[in-house]
């Protein structure tokens, strides 16, 4: 058990240009943060740079996609006995300065999973392209309807979790574009979800990995997954739950 330590999980795919600064920034915010960078089959220097900046690095042998990469981080957290974990992206759009806001409800025992929302509370000037905003609003409405709790941002990858949240995601985490389904998973398992408003920065390097056709496919896939999930008795596959 690593009492008092917080694990920062950073999935990264070809983020050599940003990853060093991200690791440094997290470590400078609070010395109690340990950083694990999950290198999702990068072909650049992401892993080497992350290690040089003091992060633990888990290199996946080939690209698993964001869901598989993030879940690797949760498995690492579980194996290493962390009671608190945060997840933020390797491209620098999540500001480590906001992490304490995310962790606070967990430390108070008010929530099991806390999501940094771009749309909760005040308008914070985060510019999202129209099509993207449409997708975000659509999923927020759909999920709110399905779980009967108001959520404003189901696509945010800026999250903090306690031991319960880590244990759930370590055994069951959706694959591509996982955040929306994960939100439903959390609430179906009767974990307490809380949103806190955060600012997000524009990407420092590279372009978003989501293209138009992929977004249409993701919309279809995730909607299908959400609608089918309502009819599941066991959100976690039974054999996995039994083993856990």
């Amino acid at each position, binding site marked *: 058990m690593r009492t008092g330590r917080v694990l920062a999980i950073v999935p990264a795919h070809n983020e050599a240009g940003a990853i060093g600064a991200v690791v440094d920034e997290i470590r400078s915010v609070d010395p109690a943060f340990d950083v694990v960078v999950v290198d999702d089959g990068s072909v650049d220097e992401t892993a080497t740079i992350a290690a040089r900046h003091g992060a633990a690095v888990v290199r996946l*042998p*080939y690209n698993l996609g964001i869901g598989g990469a993030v879940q690797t981080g949760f498995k690492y957290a579980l194996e290493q006995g962390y009671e608190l974990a945060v997840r933020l992206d390797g491209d620098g759009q999540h500001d480590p300065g906001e992490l304490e806001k995310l962790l606070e409800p967990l430390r108070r025992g008010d929530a099991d999973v806390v999501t940094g929302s771009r749309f909760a509370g005040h308008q914070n000037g985060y510019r999202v392209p129209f099509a993207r905003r449409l997708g975000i609003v659509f999923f927020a409405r759909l999920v709110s309807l399905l779980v009967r709790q108001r959520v404003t941002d189901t696509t945010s990858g800026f999250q903090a979790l306690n031991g319960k949240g880590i244990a759930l995601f370590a055994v069951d985490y959706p694959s591509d574009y996982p955040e929306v389904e994960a939100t439903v998973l959390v609430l179906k398992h009767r974990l307490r979800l809380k949103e806190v408003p955060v600012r997000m920065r524009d990407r420092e390097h590279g372009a978003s990995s989501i293209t138009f056709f992929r977004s249409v496919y993701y919309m279809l896939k995730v909607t*299908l997954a959400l609608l*089918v999930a309502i009819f599941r008795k066991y959100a976690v*596959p039974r054999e996995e739950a039994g083993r856990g």
Partner: protein
Amino acid sequence: MTPLRISIAASIASVLLILVVLELIRARRLKERYAILWLVTGVALLVLSAWRGGLNTIAGWLGVSGYPPAILFAAATLFIILVLLHYSTVLSKLTDESVILAQKVALLEQRLEEGLDARRGAE
């Protein structure tokens, strides 16, 4: 004109296909990623089966004058070819990935043995 019985039978078969696919997803025996093409197939066949006028029109375009349900078989065949082609690409990717995994495990084992030997030698 398509015989009514064929339309009814084909519609029932399409609905069954859709229901089986949905149940497989629910039971977690089929991933959404691989289910979408099957659902598109089911919906397309259902539309062609139930919408009798449409089937006749399409048959007319393609010069099938005698027996419009032939279009139904043609569409089903086309979709099955698409699904199979998709599976071939998935299988190819899986093959590549399992090679990489096997190599990785073998290399890790070698490094582990080497480390253990070195430790035994030092003791």
